[in-house]
């Protein structure tokens, strides 16, 4: 949590629009300029582990977004009454409660995905992004903005997760959305696939890449993403 950049919104007394420029920025900032994964480099553990397939990554993103948004909201509502000495413990109670809610709900309504994500749902509790946002944002800002900040960071996290998962699933398994009703077969050695590697002149050399299935692949892909993002986005270039 050390790398968290503190975002302190100025306290303004004037009446402001419910969804103005600042609110929009709360949603868009984490997608690029202040992305929790590629810029703050938080929440890497789950990003490495669940991104072998797109479907579990999507569910994981939604779960994290839910936990992030509502723990931000609850923490922000309680921010003035939370005793400073035990604030971390209070935040953990809130996070753990929401994670348990997610786990119970998934187990009851989406058992297959629950089985696929297994231990990683429980590990949302230790996802640094959540504690980071609570400490850096929700403890100092109003509920509505904290909620939006949670949604924004959830989206930022989810965007990276899904991008990594799409790459890993196509090149590692040759499919897309495997396990869902939308399942598509992309690259492989039979007519069932969109690109049939036994027929295609361009992809004839291709065999499913086992490295893509292992976690180091996610690290490599995310490294490349960070590189691409930093060379594109001038705000992120270190001057040193």
């Amino acid at each position, binding site marked *: 949590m050390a790398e968290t950049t503190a975002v302190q919104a100025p306290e303004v007394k004037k009446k402001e629009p419910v969804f103005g420029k600042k609110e929009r920025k709360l949603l868009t900032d984490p997608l690029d300029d202040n992305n929790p994964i590629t810029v703050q480099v938080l929440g890497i553990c789950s990003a490495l582990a669940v991104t072998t397939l797109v479907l579990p990554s999507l569910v994981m993103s939604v779960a994290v977004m839910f936990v992030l948004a509502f723990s931000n909201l609850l923490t922000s509502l309680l921010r003035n*009454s939370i*005793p400073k*000495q*035990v604030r971390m413990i*209070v935040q953990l*109670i809130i996070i753990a*409660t929401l994670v348990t809610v997610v786990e119970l709900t998934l187990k*009851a*309504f989406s*058992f297959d995905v629950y089985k696929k994500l297994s231990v990683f749902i429980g590990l949302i509790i230790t996802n640094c992004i959540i504690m980071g946002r609570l400490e850096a944002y929700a403890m100092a800002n109003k509920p509505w903005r904290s909620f939006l900040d949670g949604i924004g960071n959830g989206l930022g996290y989810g965007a990276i997760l899904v991008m990594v998962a799409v790459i890993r699933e196509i090149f590692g398994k040759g499919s897309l959305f495997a396990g869902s009703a939308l399942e598509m077969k992309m690259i492989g050695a039979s007519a069932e696939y969109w690109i049939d590697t036994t027929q295609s002149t361009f992809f004839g050399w291709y065999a499913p890449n086992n490295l893509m299935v292992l976690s180091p692949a996610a690290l490599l892909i995310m490294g490349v993403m960070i590189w691409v993002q930093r060379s594109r986005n001038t705000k992120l270039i270190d001057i040193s």
Partner: protein
Amino acid sequence: MHSTGYIIKFIVTLTGIVALVLAFMATALKPRQDRNEAIYNKRAILAAVEGPLGKEVKNLTDLDVQEVFDNQVEQLVVDMTGATVDDAVILKRKYKGTLAEDIDMAKEKKRPESERLLPVFIFDQDGKKYYIISVRGNGLWDEIWGNIALEDDLKTIAGTAFDHKGETPGLGGEIKDNPSFPAQFKGKKIIDDNGNYTSIVVRKGGARNPTFEVDGISGATITCDGVTEMLYRGIKYYEPYFNSIK
């Protein structure tokens, strides 16, 4: 700064509220979760007889699975001597019911070999019987398990389905994820022509004997050896039962 009294009050209230909410949710969703768990296990059992069933288990709805189980599957629990076990013995081990589906192989595996209970599922398709048995062993990282369907001659494998707790995806995980691995077992024999028990060997570098061996998965030698060991030991447990019904 807040006083210690305030902190204690705050924490106790918060914990109380949270406990109430979670307890309520857990109780309300429990029946649904148990049903999901039961259907999940039934799917795993039916996956071993996908061939005779003629349908892919993953395409069946929960209701279909339940229906197949109700109409075509007979369940019984046997002990290591092959005798059917009394309900009282099963209940004594704190299982939810006395059917084979209630037996938890993970718990049984922890008991001494002579005391274990073994589930048997007899699947009936158009009058032809298939005996589905459960085996459990160790892979590379954690436990692996599977259901093996035998034809009614009790020596030819009709189908298998494996699962694992923590094998590497793409390597050992292929015993579950790659349908061609369990498919290899179909038609293999566990008993040779002289009546000796042989089990099936998952052979590194490719099967040498087409009747008793299947191809290993490259990069997953330890998981494959685990499967071999699990099959050898697990199927043997059922020998007394098979002998009693021959």
